[in-house]
């Protein structure tokens, strides 16, 4: 099943009949073609018709999601988010027209809509044409908006170039969110990022501020002499979590070297 068909099925299963009817009827209407104004109103009305409950998904649903689109992870999504994406994808628009629609929706989006449309990035046609939207989300100082791009989303690892990727990882640390939910974090590690992260750790140390243990995960595989000194410093002075992270990073360093 395609992602939008899966989401429609989840909504039909979970929502009260009249809410499910509403979203499925709207989907048919949009498929048949409506004005831009009516399209926008339908997207606007969605949370008022469906509510904002968490989407109830079991292991089979998550497996189906991963099969429909590699890396798609709808855990933590809500019914209005799924509903809005069903409507956004309803008429099968693609190419520049879809990109223009997405751009226009984001230009006037409220917070929930912004989060929704960014979470939907892996489900859209012509992924490369939405790169600017994704990078804008990853520049946001609003943590939930940043996380909509960065966390549980295959899009950045697939589409961001190295500079964009490195900024994403550094920004995650900067706004004090976690790195663990970033997909393909290890695969996209690189020497430039390693250097940026070590410099950032030095800044934090100089300011007397804590350094996230997660930082060392992207340092280990490319740790040079200076980075090894940083890791040694963490082993001497860090707390339990930091020392564990530094040890893991040191373990990663030779393994990577041997592989190469």
């Amino acid at each position, binding site marked *: 099943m395609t992602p939008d068909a899966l989401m429609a099925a989840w909504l039909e299963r979970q929502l009260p009949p009249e809410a499910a009817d509403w979203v499925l009827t709207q989907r048919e209407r949009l498929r048949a073609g409506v004005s831009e104004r009516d399209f*926008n109103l339908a997207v606007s009305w969605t949370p008022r018709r469906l509510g904002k409950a968490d989407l109830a998904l079991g292991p089979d649903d998550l497996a189906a999601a991963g099969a429909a689109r590699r890396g798609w992870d709808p855990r933590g999504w809500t019914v209005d988010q799924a509903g809005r994406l069903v409507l956004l994808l309803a008429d099968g628009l693609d190419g520049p027209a879809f990109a223009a629609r997405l751009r226009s929706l984001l*230009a006037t989006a409220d917070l*929930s809509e912004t989060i929704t449309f960014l979470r939907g990035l892996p489900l859209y046609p012509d992924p490369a044409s939405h790169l600017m939207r994704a990078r804008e989300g990853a520049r946001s100082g609003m943590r939930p908006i940043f996380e909509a791009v960065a966390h549980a989303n295959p899009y950045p690892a697939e589409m961001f170039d190295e500079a964009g990727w490195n900024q994403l990882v550094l920004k995650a640390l900067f706004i004090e969110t976690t790195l663990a939910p970033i997909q393909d974090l290890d695969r996209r590690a690189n020497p430039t990022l390693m250097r940026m992260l070590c410099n950032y750790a030095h800044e934090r140390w100089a300011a007397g501020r804590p350094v996230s243990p997660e930082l060392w995960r992207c340092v280990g595989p490319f740790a040079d002499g200076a980075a090894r000194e940083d890791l040694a410093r963490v082993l001497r002075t860090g707390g339990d979590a930091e020392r564990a992270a530094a040890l893991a990073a040191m373990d990663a360093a030779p393994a990577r070297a041997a592989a190469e």
Partner: protein
Amino acid sequence: MYIDTHTHMISRTTDDYELMAKAGIVACIEPAFWLGQPRTNVGSYIDYLSTIVGWERFRAGQFGLRHYCTVGLNSKEANNEELAEAVMEILPRFALKEGVVAIGEIGYDEQTELEDRYFRQQLELARELGMPVMVHTPHRDKKRGTTRSMDVVEEHGIDPSWVVIDHNNEETAREVLERGFWAGFSIYPGTKMGNERMVEIVRRYGPERILVDSACDWGVSDPLAVPKTAELLRRGGIGDNAIRAVTYGNALAAYGRNGQMQEADWLDPAPIDQRTLYMGNSVLRGGQAPRVDELRRRGPGDLVIE
């Protein structure tokens, strides 16, 4: 708990948010207005409306305040026809955003023909979308402008109980209340209302359909006007129920009509909001008295900045 129904928070600092949360303000409404100077194109209008439905709402949430807004073309900028036409085109896209509680603040400034045209068009939009209306009454020729605003609302067949007439004073209060509209009073130093006068208004008319707000903005104004007025009302011997009505309950009734502002938003926030958009650590659940974490103040004597 207090609700301030008229705040231009985009002009205020984080110190203000901290003080407001500490004083027990749980929610504030940001009416769309001008920026102290006229906008020159619709693009800056779009970004402004996007800011008040987005960034400012997020910012308020970080301090435990729920932030709502109204959207509309204000009376001053209604006089720029080219801009006004473009704004009327994009307004429907913002009217149904999350947390938009009314069309406003709209009405008259100089009571020109263009102001009248766009006031009426926006009343029709509010009616079409089932939204309350916040009416800004003019500072000059106020009494006549206030009467005219209510005449026009009635002409468009809108129930007065869906309309707040704001910035009232002793001269306008009686007519607004007698005609069944909500009457907002902006406690704003030097102009609009003073809060000692407000005590007299509540004593005279009772609490029904009266709302106290601060209208705090970029000018000399006070984001604590609502809690301060509540305290003056208390000292003036006004009963607790009446104080609660004019500083909280009436606000909820007047601006809760389209379902975008509900008590549960701060007493029992949706799980998704708690995870993402609302750091609601200032209010206990279940309607108990608000507990505000002591915030470390940054006074002139606190020299250390970490």
